[in-house]
């Protein structure tokens, strides 16, 4: 399933823009020769580390010649700009070209290799490059390298003047350019092929991908980017030293890559800043600096192998949990009247096994009707049902843990269909309700079936937008039509645009009727989405299916005919004997028929309940089957 929104809809947009602007104005605010120098080096290393990640992190190809190819870029720049005396700008191009070309040559021997052998061959290849460079001393200066390379000039302006400001912006521009390029590549067909080849080579090959071409492409592109960075490095440092082929620089850049987090573009960039700054701060400690840096690297890898990027994600999750909980608390206090006005029922908090839960209860000594909402929604989704049914029923609904104005909870214990069913049991018990009719929407439908399948006494069961599953994950692919927004249902963090998309797909475009549900999406604890859907596999689906096929509880499926998520044929093929022969689809309704086609839906639900009532009063058993 493919979901790749454009960057300006993802939640990375704001942080990325802020960082770019901050770096762009930094020289004016706090620019010094020294700081600019450090940042130029950081930018260059960030380019090298991030481009390395394309092959190592995304491609799983441990190309340890990457840093040697960076050094090739330095020498290519030196040869073009100094030995041949051509334009230094041409030198930058030559640097990228030669690094890419040599990378393509290196691809030949590693074509058929895997894992550690690639490491060994590429290390050997970088040694060959090193030996060639130092053996050609008349061109490359041998072991002493090339010195006083010409610097870059733009329209006669020497880039190194004014506190290296020219190099600063050039390096920053290249960093932004290479990042955009890498981002585009990883999001493209090629990028997905690269990852597919890493994760399941044989499957990818059997789907018609060429391993050779992907390897060639990955290594060449990542080396070309690194080569350009090498050219820039050569023009900036104005020396080309054979030391750059050594294990020292390799270790430095590899530590950036792994500290940042392999398989992310942003991690290595972040780590380039971190490593350069820490290393600079320890500059006075001589040999101890290397020891401390290495220890730091080991400690981070051992205890926090995801690296800095994982740390950023964790911090973000912490913030998101805090934000959603604060939002829930705030709304609990201030919005109660508005919510009660929507449902016409009174709201109260109930202690359950999985935290404090907000319950709406229309009260009265009438038969109970329990409504269970879906993923990233809230109990107010059922406002129309509260109004339509509370004259005959005691209508009850509650906010799932991590949703609405209920508290956030422990993701491991409290966010799963089973935990949610526990919550439903506890709510019923707290309100002293027995034999309710239960209606569940979407994820809530599974909760409703689970509640019933456990043997809780239930009068009638209705679901909407919930395909009963026999086998997970096999049936998920059959039961759902995977539109791109379907992926959002289990996504931990939703950007503003994604939250809007998800709310629109599940309920409808934002208007007065759905506005509170749009707000509910951004309140929902992202972990509830990720964990509840991630744990679908461990729900006892056979028990649910056995229940639906054999139990004597009246059962109805009330789908929206235009539900974008459902494969309607799947329901027909299931042949679940129920209230009507076929799912009682509500015409012209989407995933939430009870909301936007409330009257039609309420009529169907009422008809279902009435039919049970009639059969019961006739003394007949509840209607399960219309035909065989």
């Amino acid at each position, binding site marked *: 399933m493919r979901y790749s929104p454009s960057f300006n809809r993802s939640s990375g947009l704001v942080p990325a823009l802020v960082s770019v602007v901050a770096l762009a104005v930094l020289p004016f605010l706090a620019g010094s020769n020294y700081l600019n120098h450090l940042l130029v080096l950081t930018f260059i290393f960030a380019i090298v580390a991030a481009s390395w990640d394309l092959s190592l992190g995304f491609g799983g190809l441990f190309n340890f010649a990457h840093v040697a190819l960076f050094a090739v870029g330095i020498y290519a720049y030196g040869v073009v700009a100094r030995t041949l005396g051509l334009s230094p700008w041409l030198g930058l191009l030559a640097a990228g070209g030669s690094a890419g070309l040599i990378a393509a040559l290196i691809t030949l021997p590693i074509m058929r290799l895997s894992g550690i052998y690639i490491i060994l*061959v590429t290390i050997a290849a970088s*040694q060959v490059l090193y*030996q060639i460079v130092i053996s050609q001393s008349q061109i490359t200066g041998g072991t002493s390298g090339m010195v006083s390379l010409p610097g870059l000039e733009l329209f006669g302006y020497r880039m190194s003047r004014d506190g290296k400001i020219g190099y600063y912006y050039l390096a920053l521009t290249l960093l932004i350019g290479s990042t955009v390029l890498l981002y585009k590549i990883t999001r493209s067909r090629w990028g997905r092929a690269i990852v597919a080849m890493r994760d399941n080579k044989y499957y990818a090959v059997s789907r018609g991908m060429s391993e050779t071409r992907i390897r060639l492409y990955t290594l060449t592109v990542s080396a070309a980017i690194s080569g350009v960075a090498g050219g820039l490095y050569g023009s900036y440092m104005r020396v080309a030293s054979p030391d750059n082929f050594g294990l020292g620089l390799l*270790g430095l850049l590899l530590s950036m890559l792994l500290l940042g987090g*392999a398989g992310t573009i942003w991690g290595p960039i972040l780590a380039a800043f971190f490593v350069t700054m820490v290393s600079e701060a320890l500059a006075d400690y001589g040999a101890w600096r290397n020891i401390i840096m*290495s220890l730091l690297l080991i400690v981070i*890898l051992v205890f926090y192998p995801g690296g800095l990027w994982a740390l950023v994600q964790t911090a973000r999750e912490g913030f998101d949990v805090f934000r959603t909980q604060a939002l829930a608390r705030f709304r609990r206090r201030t919005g109660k009247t508005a919510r009660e006005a929507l449902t016409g029922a009174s709201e109260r908090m109930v202690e359950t096994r999985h935290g404090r839960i907000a319950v709406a209860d229309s009260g009265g000594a009438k038969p109970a009707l329990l409504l269970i909402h879906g993923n990233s929604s809230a109990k107010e989704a059922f406002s129309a049902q509260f109004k339509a049914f509370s004259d005959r029923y005691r209508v009850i609904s509650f906010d799932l843990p991590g949703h609405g104005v209920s508290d956030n909870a422990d993701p491991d214990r409290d966010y799963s269909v089973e935990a949610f069913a526990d919550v439903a049991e506890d709510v019923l018990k707290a309100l002293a309700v027995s034999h309710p009719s239960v209606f569940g929407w979407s994820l809530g439908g599974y909760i409703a079936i689970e509640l019933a399948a456990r043997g809780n006494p239930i009068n009638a069961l209705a679901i909407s937008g919930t395909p009963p599953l026999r086998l997970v994950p096999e049936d998920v692919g059959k039961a759902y039509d995977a539109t791109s927004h379907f992926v959002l249902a289990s996504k931990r963090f939703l950007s503003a645009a994604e939250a809007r998309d998800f709310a629109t797909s599940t309920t409808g475009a934002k208007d007065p009727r759905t506005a509170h549900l749009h707000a509910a999406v951004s309140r929902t604890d992202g972990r509830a989405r990720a964990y509840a859907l991630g744990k679908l596999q461990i729900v006892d689906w056979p028990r649910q299916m056995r229940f639906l096929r054999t139990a004597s509880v009246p059962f109805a499926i009330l789908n929206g005919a235009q539900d974008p998520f459902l494969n309607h044929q799947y329901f027909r093929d299931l042949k679940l004997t129920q209230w009507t022969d076929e799912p009682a689809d509500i015409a012209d309704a989407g995933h939430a028929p009870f909301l936007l086609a409330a009257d039609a839906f309420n009529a169907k639900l009422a008809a279902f309940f009435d039919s049970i009532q009639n059969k019961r009063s006739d003394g007949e058993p509840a209607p399960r089957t219309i035909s065989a």
Partner: protein
Amino acid sequence: MTLDTIALILLGGVVLGALYALMATGLALVWTTLGIFNFAHGTFIALGAYIAWQIASTDAFGAGFVVGSLVSVIGMFLIGTAVYYLLIKPFERSPDIVVKSVITTLAGATILENLINIAWGPRNKQLGAVLTGDIQIIGLVISRNEAAAVAVSLLILAALGIFLQRAPLGRAMRAVAQNREAAQLMGIDVVRLYAVAFGLSAALAAIAGILIGSIRFMNPLMGSDPLMKALIVVIFGGIARFTGPIYAAFIVGLLEAFMTYAVGLYWSPTVLFVIMIVVLVAKPEGLFGKHRKSV
């Protein structure tokens, strides 16, 4: 080329080969057993030599060569097991243990290298020849010291080979190398065996370091060139068999000795590396390997 020159080259090649065999076998032991490549192996060689120097040399404790070597070998065994527990074991269940162990062993090598630098300084030292004088073998003159180095290497390799073939612990080690899980189910303590393999490898590195230190000079970076050579040797020989790297070591030693004579000092490593790449492309399992162990 006179006959004498050839003899000289041959002898030099054999001495080199014996040292390479010792280093490469140590490297291969870890590679086969744990499936990872230990980049700190070169530093182990240096550290082993320095520990022996510290104990043995008259400039330091002056306890004599034999005591120094023993302390160094035992010490390096312990350091090797410690390195395993600190740098490798935390990734035991991680799917990308191969890359992670590359970077942790590189970092570990950096730490040890700098510590050697701090403790003993960057200047060359010499362990000193143990035996003096020359001996004649089939008409060739060789220094007793170098002859002893070759003999010691071969003896130790033979002992290791017998250990792996016959001793229960050695067999268990081979079993773990071939199928970790099956070995576990047979009651073998895998973690302990890994630690032992790492320790043995480090001890072999120490012996190599001591031999190098006694026939040449030692400095903190003395292990980095041998590490690269050992890498070539292991790839040449393959790891499917214990003897593969040993044959390959002598081939590489002789090749290197001849090429240094024929094409010069600068080009011989290049030629070696190119040959290695060719071998890998044509026969990734090594010249003496039968099947490929890819990780």
